[in-house]
């Protein structure tokens, strides 16, 4: 499609109309250090040479590592049919047309995504869709404020720190207060949300809470007492947001069963490859009474004049293109292509396949736990986990760096992930999924054993 950009004259007239001298003035609110500098690009190269140079750059990526990194993004096997279907040109449109019903195929794909995610979460309504788990969690928190007309959100510190930061940014922009619920420091419940502290934070009639946000599994891989968190929230008149990892829902109780009003989470594990910075897929689901508060599009099924099955954009009147500044969300874009990838993945492997993926990861993780404990790095927490957990390693950062030289990506040091938790300073958060092999586990364990043997005794002189 031919596209004429603004001419220099157009720009000059627009700048004059709004009374500024340069486009840069529009960005003055952004701190200087965060602004993009000029792109310094080399001159044009022949395609052959450019291709060779890009291949050289790509070769600097470490793809040889045995990876045990999770922390919110997970390696899974994606059946070839997912990409084969996804790469069809029919899907490659950035936008749902303004008269969406002309694109029945697009609407049907969104409808199927909603239906499968509703089944997985055990909730009534699923929107399609959001940028990523962080944006989805923030949107869910804002929903609780709109629905309760309250302005205070409690979020567990066991929710992924990136999600909490996103939530904090959204909340501060909307004039809402987001407060964190601490973790239990030690004992059998160490690493999980402190329910005593939660109850205390909820017990403040002068500052009623709109919503409580907790993750299952939490950012340390541990399972939370979600029914109890929900009970405490509801007793205080607050709504309960469960932050989900979708594959785990094949074996764990879904949010709809443990009393969550809203579920939010990252859809990447559903057939979406690991990519630095995305694009990923934000999932938001809710109960029927909250349907008017959910941002994003909702597609419904109906019948046309001839009685044939058809799909419609059932609810979009509260979106930004219609309701402007009073929209349910200021994010009007969805991730339809990635929602489609998740749909194809789920439809391909089916409910039993998804259970195999989740259970396979849990079995690999149990194998990993035993191997690491035998190598001298026992688990740090006593609570139940699914496929991700923290092991205690002295000088975790140093060990993590040296293990890279031995071809092992040993998860992430908990001191980097959660620097504000002193109890976690000597830990590595590690993860296994169905693609983790016994050979990789063996490589990790023997490399770790060697590192721990080489390291000075904790507290001893170097």
């Amino acid at each position, binding site marked *: 499609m031919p596209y004429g950009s603004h001419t220099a004259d157009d720009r000059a007239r627009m700048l004059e109309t709004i009374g500024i001298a340069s486009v840069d003035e529009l960005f003055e609110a952004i701190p200087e250090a965060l602004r993009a500098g000029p792109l310094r690009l080399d001159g044009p190269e022949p395609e052959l040479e450019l291709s060779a140079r890009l291949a050289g750059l790509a070769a600097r990526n470490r793809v040889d590592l045995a990876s045990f990194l999770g922390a919110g993004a997970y390696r899974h096997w994606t059946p070839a049919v997912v990409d084969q279907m996804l790469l069809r040109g029919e899907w490659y449109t950035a936008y749902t047309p303004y008269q969406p019903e002309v694109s029945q195929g697009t609407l049907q794909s969104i409808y199927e995504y909603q239906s499968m995610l509703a089944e997985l979460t055990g909730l009534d309504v699923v929107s399609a869709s959001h940028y990523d788990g962080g944006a989805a969690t923030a949107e869910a928190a804002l929903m609780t404020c709109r629905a309760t007309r309250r302005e205070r959100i409690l979020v567990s510190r066991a929710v992924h720190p990136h999600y909490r930061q996103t939530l904090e940014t959204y909340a501060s922009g909307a004039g809402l207060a987001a407060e964190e619920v601490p973790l239990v420091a030690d004992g059998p419940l160490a690493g999980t949300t402190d329910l005593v502290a939660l109850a205390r934070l909820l017990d403040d009639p002068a500052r009623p809470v709109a919503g409580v946000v907790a993750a299952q599994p939490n950012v340390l891989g541990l399972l939370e007492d979600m029914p109890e968190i929900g009970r405490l929230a509801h007793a205080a008149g607050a709504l309960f947001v469960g932050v989900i990892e979708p594959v785990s829902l094949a074996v764990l109780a879904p949010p709809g069963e443990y009393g969550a009003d809203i579920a939010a989470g990252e859809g990447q594990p559903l057939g979406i490859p690991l990519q630095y910075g995305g694009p990923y897929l934000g999932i938001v689901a809710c109960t029927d009474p909250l349907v008017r508060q959910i941002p994003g599009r909702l597609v419904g099924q109906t019948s046309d004049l001839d009685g044939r099955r058809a799909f419609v954009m059932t609810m979009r*009147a*509260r979106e930004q293109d219609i309701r402007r500044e009073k929209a349910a969300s200021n994010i009007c874009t969805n991730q339809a292509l990635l929602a489609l990838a998740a749909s194809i993945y789920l439809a391909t492997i089916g409910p039993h396949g998804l259970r195999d993926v989740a259970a396979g990861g849990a079995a690999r993780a149990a194998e990993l736990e035993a191997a690491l404990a035998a190598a001298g790095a026992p688990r740090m927490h006593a609570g139940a986990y699914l496929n991700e957990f923290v092991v205690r390693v002295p000088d975790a950062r140093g060990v993590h760096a040296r293990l890279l030289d031995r071809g092992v990506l040993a998860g992430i040091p908990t001191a980097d992930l959660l620097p504000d938790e002193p109890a976690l300073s000597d830990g590595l958060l590690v993860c296994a999924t169905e693609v983790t092999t016994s050979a990789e586990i063996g490589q990790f364990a023997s490399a770790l054993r060697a590192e721990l043997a080489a390291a000075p005794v904790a507290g001893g002189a170097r």
Partner: protein
Amino acid sequence: MVPGDLRYTKEHEWIRVEGDEAVIGITQHAADQLGDIVFVELPGAGRTLEAMATFGVVESVKAVSDLFAPVSGEVIGANDALAGAPEVVNTDPYGDGWMLRIRLADPGQVDDLLDAAAYDALIAEG
């Protein structure tokens, strides 16, 4: 012709004063302009309304519009029947399609609203 016993806002709400209480809804003109109404979101009893501030929303198949309080007051009750049958706002906006019953904070505010003739003139302008 709009009902003569009601007062109106420029935002197309009507109000019927009954002693120190009043009933609020939207006009037939507003309902016609919105099209098929599918949802009405109203405040609960006890909420305080401020004149010309928004108190709720009405959603049709094509738009979501704010509802403006004609006068200040306290909500006594909302029309719960609209939750299951919002289309009544289209079919009977001045009767079963009423939205709120309020206790007036300042009955004098009603005098500032449009009467039927003035509201008729307003919608005739388009």
